[in-house]
């Protein structure tokens, strides 16, 4: 069976793990090991999700908008910075430690400052998403640019290729797998980043909705939102995987770059 249906057997193990977690969660609630007001049962969460699906979708549209704007700006900024850092060694040496340091600052610590500086609109949310998504893609791109076989560049030079041609025909495609690896992580960070910034101030979005239901002690709805955010993040990561597949058809032929 493993050989005949690899796609099914590959998914069996994670599906079994998810089922086991749900079963344990359900038994904990049914056996009243954890009080219902602290941990609602999966059935309650599901019911809350179905009852509030309209609200959730409306709020998710706002959060997704912030996440997508942030992600797109983050990608554009990342490309500009990574290309410059790859081109100018001095910039690489100067900026790389700074990039690492920015990752040691917790997102939750920057978010209130952004709200203070930019207000309660969309700007601080998008900015926080840009900050959170910037690092994984930049590191991915820089690592991809740096891993190019020097002989490939040498070959291009013997063919009279200029710097831009070497970048277009060698560096960029060689960095594609690392770029998509970074983008997959950033896609999930984007939604979480938007939600975190919404917690600290705003009028709409899943983060704002979460703070409201938390204040109302509606933990079943709270869990529904958490699971919904998780589902959106997984969907975004899936979309990135599809883009990766379309952008790198040679990978489907069992080829590594």
């Amino acid at each position: 069976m493993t050989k005949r249906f690899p796609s099914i057997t590959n998914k069996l193990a994670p599906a079994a793990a998810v089922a086991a977690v749900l079963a344990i969660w359900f038994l904990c609630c049914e056996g009243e090991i954890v009080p219902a007001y602290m941990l609602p049962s999966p059935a309650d969460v599901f019911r809350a999700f179905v009852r509030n699906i309209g609200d959730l979708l409306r709020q998710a549209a706002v959060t997704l908008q912030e996440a997508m704007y942030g992600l797109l700006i983050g990608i554009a900024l990342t490309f500009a910075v990574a290309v410059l850092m790859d081109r100018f060694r001095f910039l690489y040496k100067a900026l790389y430690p700074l990039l690492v340091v920015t990752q040691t600052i917790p997102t939750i610590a920057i978010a209130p400052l952004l709200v203070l500086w930019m207000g309660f609109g969309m700007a601080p949310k998008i900015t926080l998403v840009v900050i959170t998504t910037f690092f994984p893609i930049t590191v991915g791109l820089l690592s991809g640019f740096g891993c190019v076989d020097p002989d490939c560049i040498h070959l291009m030079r013997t063919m009279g290729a200029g710097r831009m041609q070497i970048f277009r025909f060698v560096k960029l495609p060689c960095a594609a797998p690392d770029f998509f690896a970074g983008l997959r992580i950033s896609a999930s960070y984007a939604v979480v980043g938007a939600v975190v910034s919404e917690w600290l101030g705003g009028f709409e979005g899943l983060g704002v909705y979460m703070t409201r239901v938390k204040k109302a002690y509606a933990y079943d709805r709270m869990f529904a939102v958490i699971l919904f955010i998780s589902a959106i993040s997984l969907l975004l990561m899936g979309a990135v995987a599809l883009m990766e597949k379309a952008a790198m058809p040679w990978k489907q032929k069992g080829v590594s770059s």
Partner: protein
Amino acid sequence: MEILKAEQISKRFGDKEVLQNVSLTLNAGEIVGVLGVSGGGKTTLFNVLSGVCAPDGGRVLLRGEDVTGKPGKVSYMLQKDLLFPYRRVVDNVCLPLTLRGMSRREARAAAEPYFEPFGLAGTQTLYPAQLSGGMRQRAAFLRTYLASDGVALLDEPFSALDAITKRTMHKWYLGVMRTIELSVLLITHDVDEAILLCDRVYILSGKPGEIRAQIRIDKEKTEDFALSTDFLDYKRQILAAMHLD
């Protein structure tokens, strides 16, 4: 007719003199070998001839034109095939044409007639990983040919192949060279390969590299040439010139 000429090429890296007054010529349609020990400056010599490395002294002439330090004039095939895994075979082969500004369609049309004689028919849409080692070398050789202006430098192109594939490739190479107009300068450290493939062989001494001898292989290369006494005579001469006898 002299097509490529290196005059008094010298090159040093820091205190280390790698090439010293190296002069050689390549005539139209010739296959000329450059034999020498490892670290003897063969690859540096090719880097200078291809224009990616400027010499400290001397100059390189292509059909009389000074091309010293000008890359893109003399085609160069490196030891590894260096086919890009993300480009289809046809696009790998067409790369030098694309770099010169041809559109993808024009480049593909220009390369298409060579797939059959180079033994690559039907591989156009495949990716390099789907080819055998020998086919990858042929694709790399076709790319080198398309990049060339009638002159190519081959840096140990068969060294990574197993003995059987190498033998097949030698036969194929001699066959295809009869159908195309290409003058080749071939680096090798394999004496047998040099005798089998080349019309002339330069012996490059090491540290610093300088031309020690030039041996002409002018006997007809029949089917059993590799087993003939002529072959052994050439081998003896070359080994003596390399001081390895």
